[in-house]
């Protein structure tokens, strides 16, 4: 049974469990502080493929394969797969997953796709539409750069507010009536746009969306930031994280003690030259499916608000002078089933 709490939040009765998860990253991400948590680490950015796009597809396929094997399941046990990525027409997902022969739902939520796909998989499972579903997403620094910015070898200089697209993929297998961690609640976010136009300051463009979704969830449920071990945003980076805390403080919500950001966790900001932190679908995907879910499984953390954030612009809209709309979806993960 799924019931609606307040205006925006869904409570998933018989809460679906996370029965398997896996992360795939490349060399740079493995040189960061979360190295020991990742399942598969590529020797280089190619993952044995000829093009960056094929490499990204390969990461998704490997992430799903690993998550299934960790869950002790095969593709035949999965009724739906929810997937998305950053590339035009979501080709990483389509090409990466075409051989699996699992009913496929393509999603586009930019960097919020991990929360979006996990929400969909959980809602489908809680509604009884399936017993097992997979959520997967990915991003690749090289394929994203050539689509959104400049060629890799171009000698342009990144601004201090720019973020580094994570080369990584995260996959979650959701199933019904098993052990925790559970997906207890989901809040689908509203598009927020506060007029930020700087393509090199995505954190600032997305922070209002994260603030709005977190506020809606807390209002709907009557919970406080202190009720959670961690409020984890997707890829706000240095600038967006600071703005998120300030925005919520204006509504008398203080998340500063509980807030963490995947974009700040995945890299060593001092040593790895990533400016304001990591970004991309694979950022929140790979951090959730490694460090976070591992620590939830071993009981180090029990209640997490996972709020993946996305910037919904394209190169065309930015060139036409449009501002950048942001989105944030929230998934409440807990070791306690509701």
């Amino acid at each position, binding site marked *: 049974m799924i019931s609606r709490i307040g205006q925006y939040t869904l409570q998933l009765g018989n809460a679906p469990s996370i029965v398997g998860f896996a992360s795939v990253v490349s060399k740079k991400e493995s040189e960061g502080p979360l190295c020991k948590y990742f399942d598969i680490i590529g020797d280089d950015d190619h993952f044995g493929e*000829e*093009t*960056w796009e094929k490499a990204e597809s390969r990461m998704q396929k490997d992430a799903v394969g690993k998550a299934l094997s960790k869950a002790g399941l095969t593709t035949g046990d999965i009724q739906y797969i929810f997937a998305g990525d950053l590339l035009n027409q979501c080709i990483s997902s389509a090409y990466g997953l075409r051989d699996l022969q699992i009913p496929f739902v393509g999603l586009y939520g930019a960097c919020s796709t991990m929360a979006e796909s996990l929400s969909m998989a959980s809602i489908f499972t809680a509604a009884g539409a399936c017993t097992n579903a997979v959520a997967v997403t990915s991003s690749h620094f090289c394929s994203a750069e*050539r689509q959104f910015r*400049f*060629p*890799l*070898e*171009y*000698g*342009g*200089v990144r*601004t*201090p*507010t720019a973020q580094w697209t994570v080369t990584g993929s995260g996959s979650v297998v959701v199933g019904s009536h098993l052990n925790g961690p559970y997906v207890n609640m989901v809040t689908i976010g509203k598009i*927020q746009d*506060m*007029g*930020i136009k700087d393509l090199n*300051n995505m954190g*600032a463009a997305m922070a*209002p969306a994260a*603030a*709005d979704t977190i506020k809606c969830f807390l209002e709907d449920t009557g919970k406080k930031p202190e009720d959670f071990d961690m409020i984890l945003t997707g890829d706000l980076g*240095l*600038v967006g994280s*600071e*703005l998120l805390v*300030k*925005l919520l403080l*204006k*509504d008398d919500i203080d998340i500063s003690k509980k807030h963490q950001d995947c974009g700040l966790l995945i890299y060593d900001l001092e040593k790895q*030259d990533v400016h*304001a932190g990591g970004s991309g679908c694979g950022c929140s995907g790979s951090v959730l499916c490694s460090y976070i879910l591992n620590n939830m499984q071993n009981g180090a953390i029990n209640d997490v608000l996972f709020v993946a954030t996305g910037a919904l612009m394209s190169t065309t809209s930015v060139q036409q002078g449009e501002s950048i709309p942001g989105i944030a979806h929230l998934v409440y993960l807990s070791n306690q089933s509701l």
Partner: protein
Amino acid sequence: MSITNQEYDSLTKQASPGTKSYKTIPMAFLIGGLICVLGQAFINLYIWLGVDQQTASTLGSMTLIFIAALLTGLNMFDNIAKVAGAGTLVPITGFSNAVVSPALEFKSEGYVLGLGAKMFVIAGPVIVYGVVASVVYGLILFLFGLV
């Protein structure tokens, strides 16, 4: 949101770190200057080899273009540019890199629609407006009877 777009814009400006100009400007000056010294050294070398002044200048530019293209192909140019900033971008080395880097990048879409079509994706506007500017400049010279 209980905040206007203007208020958010000023919050964003406060939160966004600025470029460390005290570091980037001297580096751009230093490396840009070194590239110019290198260019002059090549010109002197070609004159010493017996080439006339004008041809030596052209050969000097060509040599810098070649070196920048080679360094781009060897994945070294962007690492130098990260430190040098406008120091590598403004001299003719930057133009070379702007043509070679998309040519390398888009090779995966084939030699015609990839490499050929995308090669001038960054440098194209510079060529277009460079030509336009030179036409305007020529017209001014012509109209005022300076030629």
